[in-house]
């Protein structure tokens, strides 16, 4: 089946994917302001590179844990863990999810009540090397909150940061990633949306004009 994607290129997809394409806004140019930053293949290549960089630094992960930040960093953390286990035969990787809601600095500053997500860390982080994993690094405020939140679980030896997308020139705090998938220049009015096969039907990164 042939459909046209956002760039106007036609691509072949299976029927099941076509159904998804019908519902997807970029099929008919409904949001023409949407631009693909990374497609599924590029995301896959980047994930493997990031996995290799992690192995280069942490070898067998004996004292290293991955912590995905809720809500959207957990998909990246899951995927990296899967690649490390299945493609690079790294055993016993510990993975946790951290929710930072109660540590955010914008409580009572927005219209809505901040809603929490589940924190699932069933190991002690005392003395461990932690890699925080999030999809997009923007102002750095989430990471600031995560650095405070993680202290509730002990005193880690070292904390690193891995992000799939690094939005350049937009930081409010002196925070930089140790591992970055792709650096992009995006103005403040635009949004970067990372989609994952698991719940968005495809691996992709979009730039959306608001």
């Amino acid at each position, binding site marked *: 089946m042939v459909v046209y994607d956002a760039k106007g290129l036609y691509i072949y997809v299976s029927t099941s994917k076509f159904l998804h394409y019908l519902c997807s806004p970029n099929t008919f140019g409904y949001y023409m302001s949407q631009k693909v930053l990374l497609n599924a293949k590029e995301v896959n290549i980047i994930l493997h590179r990031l996995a290799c960089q992690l192995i280069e630094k942490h070898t067998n992960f004996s004292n290293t844990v991955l912590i995905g930040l809720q809500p959207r960093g957990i998909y990246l953390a899951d995927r990296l863990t899967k690649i490390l286990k299945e493609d690079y035969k790294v055993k016993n990787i510990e993975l946790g999810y951290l*929710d930072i*809601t*109660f*540590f*955010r600095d914008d*409580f*009572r*500053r927005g219209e*809505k*009540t*901040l*809603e*929490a*997500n*589940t*924190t699932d860390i069933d190991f*002690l982080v005392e003395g461990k090397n932690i890699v925080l994993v999030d999809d997009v690094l923007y102002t750095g405020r989430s990471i600031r909150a995560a650095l*405070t*939140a993680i*202290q*509730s*679980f*002990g005193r880690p030896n070292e904390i690193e940061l891995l992000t799939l997308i690094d939005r350049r020139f937009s930081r409010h705090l002196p925070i930089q990633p140790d591992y970055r998938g792709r650096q992009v220049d995006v103005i403040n009015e635009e949004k970067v949306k990372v989609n994952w096969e698991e719940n968005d039907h495809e691996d992709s990164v979009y730039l959306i004009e608001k």
Partner: protein
Amino acid sequence: MSELSVNHLLGIKYLKEQDIQLIFETADHFKEVINRPIKKVPSLRDITIANLFFENSTRTKLSFELAEKRLSADVINFSSGQSSVKKGETLIDTVNNILSMKVDMVVMRHPNPGAGVFLSKHIDASIVNAGDGAHEHPTQALLDSYSIREKLGDVSGKKVVIVGDILHSRVALSNIYALQLQGAQVMVCGPKTLLPKYINDLGVKVETNIRKALNWCDVANMLRVQNERMDISYFPSTREYTQQFGVNKELLDSLDRDITIMHPGPINRGVEITSDVADSKQSIILDQVQNGVAIRMAVIYLLASKIKQ
């Protein structure tokens, strides 16, 4: 829904079912927080809360104070025993004096029913009712339902009997509202003299035989006989009350079903329940206390997030 429909927690009567679910979901997260090595989050660091206790309390006061401190709020405490209330100051004056010290939220226990509602109409701060006379004790009812949900998976469809002094109990009234809102069936059981005259109007079953009541229910919430609130004798003697309405291990084991035992505390061991029942596997009394902190953190967090800067 991510926001409470109310600005104060004055009673369960004013809540909607979604409010209760939101409080429970938020409490789930706080329960995880209070089991961390460091049990504190910085959310409420710019909020000041006054705990005004015009009536004695140990557990509720400690539980609220702990919940506030775990949320990093600043806390001031007030007990009427050592205060100007004794010198004739009115409630509004007392509270306004405290509020002029820039307090954002008031947690109040008061011997008069409706004190919280009255105050909410006169002052500009969020109010949490920590018990007003024999009227309501909303956080207790919330933590009771939360404990049932934790133990039995769901509150909806469960049968709960509240045993004891229903007449003087704010816990009973709040529990009836909360359980019914969540679709549970409620029965009250106690001596006729301690059952309010029009209790049927609330849509609850009434039973005066403890064995029949326990055989009907999934959960029994045992209330304390509140001697301090009794101006006259409602039953001949404590011993007779225990014989008629007390729960012991023998009675519990002779039932057709395994029921869950709850008690809001403080327990009069050997009066409403015996020690072996209070400490049995079927009892979730200490879980209730732990859940109390998580529920109060959730209530305070959700109310505080509605206070505009």
